């Protein structure tokens, strides 16, 4: 009994160390939320396009595997993510639909002119309502939508090359890429 008591601090330490090992691993973001919309149909939206062309709507994305990326010119982490998106578009030939979240058309256009445009099409979510419908709580966020129009995965924050290689590309492959 006494001996067991002496083991108590060690046991407490092991439990604490276990928590730290789980919670402090580099890939863990305690603020990241799972999407409430996983496996639910993508919210309906109908947004004016950036530049000329047809409206960017949920209906127009039906029947294909889609990567939807919420971004904004005022968003600093989006700049970190930008080269990753460029690689996805140019090397992996992934069709990314961009949604400029609470941005002005001029600023969004300037960003894409300056840094390069990884998007097949860009819709303007001026009010941020489409963002709320998707459950966006901070740009950038990236959603993968399957051919039946269901949300299959949500990435919060800038896409890292690691997340692209280990999660995004395998998932797209599995869904039968766009």
């Amino acid at each position, binding site marked *: 009994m006494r001996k067991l008591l002496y083991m108590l601090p060690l046991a407490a330490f092991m439990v604490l160390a276990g928590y730290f090992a789980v919670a402090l691993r580099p890939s863990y973001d305690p*603020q990241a*939320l*799972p*999407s*409430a*919309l996983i496996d639910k149909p993508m*919210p309906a939206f109908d947004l004016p396009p950036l530049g000329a062309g047809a409206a960017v709507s949920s209906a127009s994305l039906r029947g294909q595997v889609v990567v939807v990326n919420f971004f904004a010119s005022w968003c600093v982490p989006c700049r970190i993510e930008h080269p990753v998106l460029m690689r996805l578009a140019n090397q992996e030939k992934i069709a990314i639909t961009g949604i400029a979240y*609470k941005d002005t058309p001029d600023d969004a256009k300037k960003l894409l002119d300056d840094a390069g445009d990884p998007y097949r099409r860009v819709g303007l979510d001026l*009010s*941020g*309502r489409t963002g*709320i*419908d*998707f*459950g966006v*709580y*901070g740009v950038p966020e990236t959603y993968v939508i399957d051919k039946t129009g269901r949300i299959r995965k949500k990435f919060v924050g800038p896409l890292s090359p690691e997340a692209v290689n280990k999660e995004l590309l395998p998932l797209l492959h599995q869904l039968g890429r766009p």
Partner: protein
Amino acid sequence: MIRALFLLLLLVPGLAGAVEPSERLADPALEARARALSQTLRCLVCQNESIDESDASLAHDIRMLLRERLRAGDSDVAARQFIVARYGDFVLLKPPLEPATLVLWFAPALVLLAGGFGVVLYLRRRPQQAESPLTEAERERLARILKETDA
């Protein structure tokens, strides 16, 4: 007088939310419902503030959305569900009671019970010292000490 006024002033920040005058609804009853509702919803940017307290732009948007729903005739439950459908149960500052949250709700009570049980066990097991009366020698010594302190 001035001090009383000053103290009263200190209470003011406690009453204030981040709700801006331009956000308020004209109907005071509806506005009161919106305020009460928004105090139960988490701001997803600041995460430990309600959208009523948060100055984040997303909190502003959700406040406006909530008011829009209420004005359209939604009940409190329906308006809240509208937000929960988009952001999940995490937006509720008070988590719902359901199988997944049973541990969250009842673990504190269980820990308290376990602790209380431990205390009871400890007190019971502790050898109770019987009080024995002082011996003759002790009584004499005590009398001596008392006399000394008196002197």
